[in-house]
């Protein structure tokens, strides 16, 4: 369906759909590429990411002087192939992103829907939980937990998952409140639907589009937090090729071999940018979707 805005010449439009679409497409292709790379990592990497070659330490990438054609992105301080480590690093970032979002999504959406649907005292409790969560300093608590329990991939995922649910809860709660009083909820109950059925089959699909947007943003946040934790030495343990860990290990050599810190940094930047662009695009698509339906 065309809106009045769409018939205007491009420079007169209030929104620039072409640019927005391009950005979304860029974000989507970055994310898809990252997933493909992560899944097929063993087939894409030229070397074992853990194999050391002390004869070839801190080899620069191919476009610089005194590089080796065999190591496209050079090697790190103990001679591990940087490209292979970067590719395996995608796995860790995405694994953490996806699992954290699933954990925090389950917690947040459950709490939010229940609070939004039942209202009253239940909702007051939910709001209290959200406020409590918001007053917890995220990084400090994550650091403390990891320091106490010991660092491992599982611990990082669980810690972040248990801490990052509040935006899910807030969005699920408000959108559920909007949906709750619509007639089709009453109609479903009048047709004999149980409470659980109403929450899962009637409410959830109608707020899912909002939750998808939150999921992308939370995923980007989780990936950044993992990098930060790993950089501080309290995230993913060595010798796993996490991007944050790569930056941390590289910081001693950044003066003479700056690429060791720039490469994982750029990778992190591109992935997070891609996820955020995709999230923004999804949000805009949702908005036009709503307008087309005449809501």
């Amino acid at each position: 369906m065309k809106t009045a805005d769409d018939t205007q010449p491009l420079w007169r439009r209030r929104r620039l759909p072409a640019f927005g679409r391009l950005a979304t497409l860029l974000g989507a292709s970055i994310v898809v590429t990252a997933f493909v790379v992560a899944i097929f990592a063993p087939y894409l990497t030229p070397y074992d990411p853990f194999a050391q070659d002390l004869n070839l330490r801190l080899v620069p990438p191919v476009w610089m002087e005194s590089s080796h054609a065999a190591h496209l992105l050079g090697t790190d301080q103990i001679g591990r192939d940087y490209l292979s480590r970067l590719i395996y690093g995608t796995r860790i970032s995405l694994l953490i992103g996806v699992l954290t979002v699933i954990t925090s999504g389950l917690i947040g959406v459950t709490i939010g829907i229940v609070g939004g649907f039942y209202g009253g005292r239940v909702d007051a409790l939910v709001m209290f939980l959200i406020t409590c969560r918001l007053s917890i300093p995220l990084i400090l608590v994550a650091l403390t937990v990891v320091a106490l329990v010991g660092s491992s991939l599982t611990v990082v995922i669980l810690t972040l998952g248990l801490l990052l649910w509040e935006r899910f809860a807030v969005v699920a709660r408000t959108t559920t409140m909007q949906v709750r009083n619509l007639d089709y909820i009453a109609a479903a109950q009048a047709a004999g639907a149980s409470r659980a059925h109403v929450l899962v089959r009637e409410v959830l699909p109608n707020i899912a589009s909002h939750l998808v947007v939150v999921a992308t943003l939370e995923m980007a946040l989780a990936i950044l937090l993992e990098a930060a934790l790993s950089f501080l030495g309290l995230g993913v343990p060595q010798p796993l090729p996490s991007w944050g860990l790569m930056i941390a290990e590289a910081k001693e050599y950044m003066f003479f071999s700056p690429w060791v810190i720039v490469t994982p940094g750029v990778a992190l930047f591109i992935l997070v940018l891609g996820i955020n662009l995709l999230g923004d695009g999804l949000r805009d698509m949702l908005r036009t979707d709503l307008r087309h339906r005449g809501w």
Partner: protein
Amino acid sequence: MAPVLSIANLRVSFPRMEAVRGVSLTLRGGETHCLVGESGCGKSISALSVMNLLPRSAVRSADHIRFHEHDLLAMSERQMAWLRGDKIAMIFQEPMTSLNPAYTIGSQMAEVLERHRRASRRQALDRAAELLARVGITAPGMRLAQYPHQLSGGLRQRMMIATALMCDPEVLIADEPTTALDVTVQSQVLRLLRKLQQEMGLALLLITHDFGIVARMAEHVSVMYAGEVVESGPVEQIIKAPTHPYTRGLLNCIPVPGMTKPGEPLGSIPGGVPHIGRGFLGCGFRERCPMAARECAEPVHLHDAGEDHFYRCRLPPDWKLDASP
């Protein structure tokens, strides 16, 4: 004939108001009973309390609410859920918002039969297509695959009716089913409801604010005002000889062929619905009533005007408004 649904002395109260104050009505198989009154008089709340779908803050009590011989007041939420949509179905006022935008028409219709009859998706969709054809929707197969936003208001309301009939209910509660539709579609939907009711022997509880619809559809009517049934009886009786001042006022507001003189303005009832708090006594209409007197502030009993016609007013059945000012 034994009533299918009978409600006795239903009361529903909210924290700050009494929404329904002692409503009784009986509904027989194959009969249409209209609940008529202006907005806020407790019609919808009465209907929702039969289904036990009231808002959480509402408190419901009654001497009994019976479906055949089952007491709905004593039923658990689970038992009620089994009854809803199966034996007692309901359609709502707004066909635009009564359908879940996330599912196709077919999926929403089929779900009811799958839930109550443990039917397969295939069987349920066949039944849905059959009912869509029956409510006059052409190309039901195509409609089943469509989403609600692809349908017009009239089509949606037909589809809502078809959904309500999926399990062959005995009682159909229709809460202002045609209010949101334009007049021509309204008339088609009413004709359809009438036809289906006769074919299926449904007991229809029709909620409306339009006496025109009452005259067209119902055998029996209960006029509600401020949470009470102020007058009830067979439709011809009520239209021929309305007794309660409110009923007379309502009937004065609509043009009746042969009775309203051309050029003469239609009547209106001055004032608005009062707020009924806890401990309110007497007739709720007394502030707007041309015949109000001091004794109207005392509890008013139901009077029998004969032939199943009851009214709740101190006046005799044949009272006349004094012509002198």
